[in-house]
């Protein structure tokens, strides 16, 4: 039983969500290959080859693959799937975009957001915003899963797999890539950061969000997150949204500032190791899951916190 892991990267750097997906794949099989797709991604493939326990790395490059056109990525994986019993995909926005296509091409179910591999046919996944955990068993010949990477440890380094080139599929003719606007930041990525500082509706404006949340994050070397309310109101970019329908994070420390703690938000951060809530309402639901709660207006609490951090 061999597993194909699809690498997650930003074009230049391999994300450690790939290492975590390798760990999930190893629970299925000892034969784990990694596929890197993109353009100019040789460095990423070389990095993937160093992941401990990887048998070989496949590298496929084209403009459509670089733009992560779902049709192209799924066609590539479908072409390789014959050699594998399972395909494991990090559950990023990109992975969620093409994974169901791979399953449909193979006429099998998608096992989405897997948090535990019980055995080769049995998987645990959260449903209802993580308010329930479903254990499902499949008897399908091939498995296609997206992996909730926060639930798995990262595989180590030390491998020396060979990198093989694979031809890119023909570009999908119904789709044209027009452009992208990516948020550039020197801070750690939300999904990888050890500390996350998130702001909510309480911040009231984009300027205030920047003036309050950013300096605290910078002082702590943290990534910045936000609630849906803050993103909807334009205080923070869409990519910052933590929750059921945004990013799922599980850092060592999560600091929620002016966030009430709706279940949809909790779904994205309740597996953090230590949770801090700063909210002026002592009844806010966020306090029911916070390890440390500070009932105070953020306008006085955050400057005091900055001071106490020195």
């Amino acid at each position: 039983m061999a597993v194909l892991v699809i690498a997650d990267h930003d074009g230049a750097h391999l994300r450690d969500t790939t290492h975590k997906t390798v760990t999930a794949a190893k629970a299925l099989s000892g034969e784990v290959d990694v596929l890197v797709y993109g353009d100019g991604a040789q460095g990423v493939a070389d990095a993937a080859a160093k992941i401990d326990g990887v048998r070989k790395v496949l590298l496929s490059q084209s403009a459509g693959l670089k733009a992560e056109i779902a049709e192209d990525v799924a066609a590539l994986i479908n072409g390789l799937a014959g050699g594998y019993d399972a395909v494991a995909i990090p559950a990023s926005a990109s992975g969620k975009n093409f994974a169901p296509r791979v399953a449909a091409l193979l006429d099998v179910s998608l096992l989405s957001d897997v948090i535990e591999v019980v055995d080769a046919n049995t998987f645990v996944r959260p449903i209802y915003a993580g308010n329930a955990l479903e254990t499902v068993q499949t008897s399908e010949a091939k498995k296609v899963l997206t992996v909730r990477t926060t639930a798995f440890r990262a595989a180590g380094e030390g491998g020396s797999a060979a990198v093989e080139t694979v031809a890119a599929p023909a570009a999908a003719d119904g789709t044209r890539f027009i452009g992208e606007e990516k948020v550039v930041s020197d801070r750690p990525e939300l999904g990888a950061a050890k500390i996350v500082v998130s702001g909510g509706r309480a911040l009231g404006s984009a300027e205030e969000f920047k003036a309050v949340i950013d300096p605290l994050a910078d002082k702590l070397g943290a990534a910045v997150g936000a609630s849906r309310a803050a993103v909807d109101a334009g205080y923070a970019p869409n990519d910052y949204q933590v929750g059921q329908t945004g990013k799922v994070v599980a850092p060592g420390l999560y600091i929620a500032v002016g966030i009430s703690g709706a279940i949809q938000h909790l779904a994205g951060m309740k597996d953090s190791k230590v949770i801090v809530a700063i909210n002026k309402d002592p009844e806010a639901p966020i306090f029911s899951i916070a390890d440390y709660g500070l009932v105070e207006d953020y306008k006085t609490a955050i400057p005091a916190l900055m001071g106490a951090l020195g």
Partner: protein
Amino acid sequence: MKILVPVKRVLDYNVKVRVKADQSGVDLSNVKMSMNPFDEIAVEEATRLKEKGVATEIVAVSIGPAQAKDTIITALTIGADRGILIQTDVDVEPLAVAKLLKAVVEQENPDLVIMGKQAIDGDNNATGQMLSTLLGWPQATFASKVVVENGEAQVTREVDGGLQTLVVKLPAVVTTDLRLNEPRYASLPNIMKAKKKPLDMKTVADYGVDVTPRLKVVRVTEPPKRGAGVKVKDAAELVASLKSAGVL
């Protein structure tokens, strides 16, 4: 131009989820059910396209129990012109939903399917991508802006790291993200009008699709609970606590 909007009946997003004691699933008896919020956004978007004169007809389709009729009526209230309910008591999985929707598409020949990115019960985020694959139509998922002109849709998508813009040739499948629009409130006259709009009742057998679940649900359990924390009196105590917990 005709738009098809699949809508799912789900546990209302405000309702507390209760796992059944026998671990067979989530308790859905006597609780408020509503249209999946992402599908409301999809119906709203279709309605705006109709109001702009881009679309001429909106068909809402739901696969579910008899009560999913209410979900279709909600769609008709927002602005859909007619509804199709494919009635079944089976909990139909995304791949089978996609197959049923493909059969509906082949009968209805819409130019665009707009649907939710994710149903908030199963949280699969799969059906739209699967439907696009089965139809061989382009997909544009997680849309925060849709502009339809000249037989194409320009879609701004919420992706890792920011936004991406694609142009897809119609017919295509678009799935909605939260920022696409804010659905309108139902007005009383529209509720009255909706009740008079046509609603076709169908069965799974009408489409010849096998909806037998492929996945066996072994058990459904509650997630581990976090232990109750403590309240700190000020920022200084917070920092001291975090230092002694070893996270700073």
